[in-house]
């Protein structure tokens, strides 16, 4: 195989001449520089230009997405803090309410107990007074009855001659009378 078999159109233009195996040829250098320049421009514009553009776009897109996500995260954190604050305030308030209610209830129960104690003390003292009075009344009644009996006994003693038998009987009578009381 040779050049002629692959690219016949070039072969037809061939001069049949060959350069030296190791030769520095101005035409080849200029031609190679032009070839390289064309390839460089194509690769620069169509490969690196386009790909770098798309890579930059993607990088920017990713950065944007990340910054948006960060923003959303910050927002969420702020909201969370706000809600925490609100929750804390509400808890404090409820605790206050409970504390106040407890204190009030304690006060009220203290008051009730105090009042009840007072009342009970009053009732007891009144009852004691009543008992005392009744006792006095009973004692006085007994005293009256005893004196009545004594008077009756004395009358009977005065009416009759008192014998020893009579005396004994009187005493027994008296005692019986007393017993009837």
């Amino acid at each position, binding site marked *: *195989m*040779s*050049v002629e*078999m*692959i*690219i016949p159109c*070039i072969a037809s*233009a*061939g*001069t*049949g*001449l*060959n*350069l*030296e*195996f*190791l*030769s*520095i*040829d*101005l*035409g*080849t*250098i*200029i*031609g*190679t*520089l032009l*070839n*390289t320049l*064309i*390839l*460089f421009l*194509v*690769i*620069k514009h*169509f*490969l*690196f230009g*386009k*790909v*770098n553009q*798309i*890579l930059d*776009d*993607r990088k920017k*897109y990713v950065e944007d997405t990340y910054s948006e996500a960060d923003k959303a995260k910050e927002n969420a954190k702020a909201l969370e803090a706000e809600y925490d604050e609100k929750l804390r305030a509400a808890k404090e308030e409820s605790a206050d309410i409970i504390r106040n209610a407890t204190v009030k209830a304690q006060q009220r129960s203290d008051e009730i107990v105090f009042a009840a104690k007072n009342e009970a003390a009053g009732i007891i003292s009144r009852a004691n007074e009543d008992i005392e009075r009744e006792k006095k009344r009973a004692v006085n009644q007994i005293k009256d009855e005893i004196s009545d009996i004594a008077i009756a006994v004395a009358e009977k003693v005065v009416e009759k001659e008192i014998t020893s038998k009579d005396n004994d009987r009187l005493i027994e009578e008296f005692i019986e009378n007393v017993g009837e009381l």
Partner: protein
Amino acid sequence: MGFAQSGDFGGVSGPGVLFYFDLPIVGRINITESVVIGFVLVVAISIFVIWLTHGMKKIPTKRQIVAEWIVETVNKLVKDNMGPSHLVYAPYIATIFVFSITGSLVSLLGLRSVTADASVTIAWALICLVMITYTKLKYSGFGGYLKSFTEPIFVMTPMNIFSEIMTPISMGLRHFGNVAGGMVITALIYWALANLSAKLHLYFSMGEIRIGVLQIGIPAVLSVYFDLFSGFMQAFIFIMLTMANVGNCIPDDKK
């Protein structure tokens, strides 16, 4: 190259001249195989690149992933060797790399390797010299550029100038030498196998062309090294040297 015929080894010729102009002052301008095959490669690569990157979207297709991988790989290579602020060189590096590889691999189609022409590789090396000089002028100014040749001592000036010119020349010649050497060895082996086949009467004829049986298969194994491996390696070495030589002229704090 073509299939070597048995007989005396005719040697390996330089690139064929397809047509030429005789111009005044500059003399004869040859349009050689290297330039025409190079131009065909440029057109083919351009079509491939344009196909690769047309209709790119934010969500990439397989085609686009390949394009992005190429660009990112070259960008990373340039970033590592020349610093992140010199990504502007990346398209050029990619150009030389793909041109060099395809230029070497056209030998698989039976064409003469573009890179087996010293003029081609030296043209690329000259671009490298221009880039080196531009970079030096940019970072140390014209005075600093001239002064750098007298360092470390004034006596070194001719040596430094010589070294400055030889850096790209050696780059160009080593690339040419590797590919052309492989081409010569391949041709020699074809010739040797053709002669061996002729001696053993193991050949068949296709019209004018006589093909030795031993010429089939054995050269393919060598082709894997001389065409595929060497073509890839030389392209890679050439771009690494380009980046290293230009990168060396960039002060560390400007990379």
